[in-house]
């Protein structure tokens, strides 16, 4: 699929916030609109979220993107779909406690650090 940069895209929506919660954010861009329609600006300022096609370069993957606004401005969020499921009590969960050793890159060095694992407050 070709890049979407430099090509006009039509935002789809507004979409419910729950749709964005079915995704994990990959990248976030701050948008500086050159020109923006008044109704779209007001809609974003009111908390609406729109879905839009966004590919920074030609790609075989078509990850969705969302446009939203908050008190800081307007943002474009590129996302990756996630699959959540409702689980019941009798649903089996296969557990492998061992995490990949590459995930614990610093594990060997714990002997040199503090043993406080309560974390801090912001």
């Amino acid at each position, binding site marked *: 699929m070709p890049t979407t940069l430099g090509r006009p895209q039509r935002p789809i929506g507004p979409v419910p916030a729950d749709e964005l919660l079915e995704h*994990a954010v990959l990248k976030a861009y701050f948008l500086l609109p050159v020109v923006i329609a008044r109704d779209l600006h007001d809609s974003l300022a009111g908390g609406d979220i729109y879905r839009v096609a966004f590919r920074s370069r030609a790609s075989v993957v078509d990850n969705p993107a969302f446009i939203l606004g908050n008190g800081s401005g307007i943002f474009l969020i590129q996302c990756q779909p996630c699959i959540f499921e409702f689980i019941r009590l009798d649903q089996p969960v296969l*557990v492998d406690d061992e995490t990949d050793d590459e995930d614990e890159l610093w594990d060997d060095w714990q002997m040199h650090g503090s043993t406080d*694992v309560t974390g801090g407050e912001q």
Partner: protein
Amino acid sequence: MIRMRRIRLADPRGRDATVLLVPVGESVKQRYQDTEGRPVRNVRRIRATSDTCPDALFARYSDPDDLARALISGDPEIDMETTGRTTGPCDRVHLDGNGQVQYAPSVVEARFGPDGLEKDRRALSVRPSNIVTPAPPVWSGLLLPRAEVVRSYALTRAYQVVHSNALEYDFLLGIAAYLDEPQSMVQVGSGRRGVGPLILECNGPRYRGFLDGRVRDDAMRLVLYLGAFELAVPDERL
């Protein structure tokens, strides 16, 4: 078999339990297969030993021409008994300049300037994981509408919280029902108020955690979202 982490969570009643986190992002990752459709898996293999690694060869052959001739004639870079074997589980060790194992190294953080020169060095600070704490976690009680959370934070990671026994299921179902009714998310974190950053792995990044719960009939869905940063622009960019 799913690889998963554990997290110690508190519920609105102040009770806590250690439950499982399933990384949901993995379910949509691209999978590779060979020409016959069989799944491809990664295997770690031995490339060189301490006697055949480049540093050892450079030490043995000080003249590059001698090294080149030796590589062509004798294959000193290959240990015929070891090279290409699968490693199995590995322990990471640190070596000194002579290739000898260091048993109690002092790891330091060296900082370099744009010119490539070392500016300073200091003891490495270790920031441990804090998702399974010895102290009981705290229910923050900070409920936020879902729409407000998605418009304020970049939720870069998501884990489905699951049970491993019936008691844990009841515990998670209670939290999910509590959050489903007001259609809100609760902030989950460290510290005395339960709003501090979450650190999933040692020296890993700090995240702001949000728990989203839903109930449908006799099933529930509890998801821990991790926000890597706020959707805000630094003042100098404005």
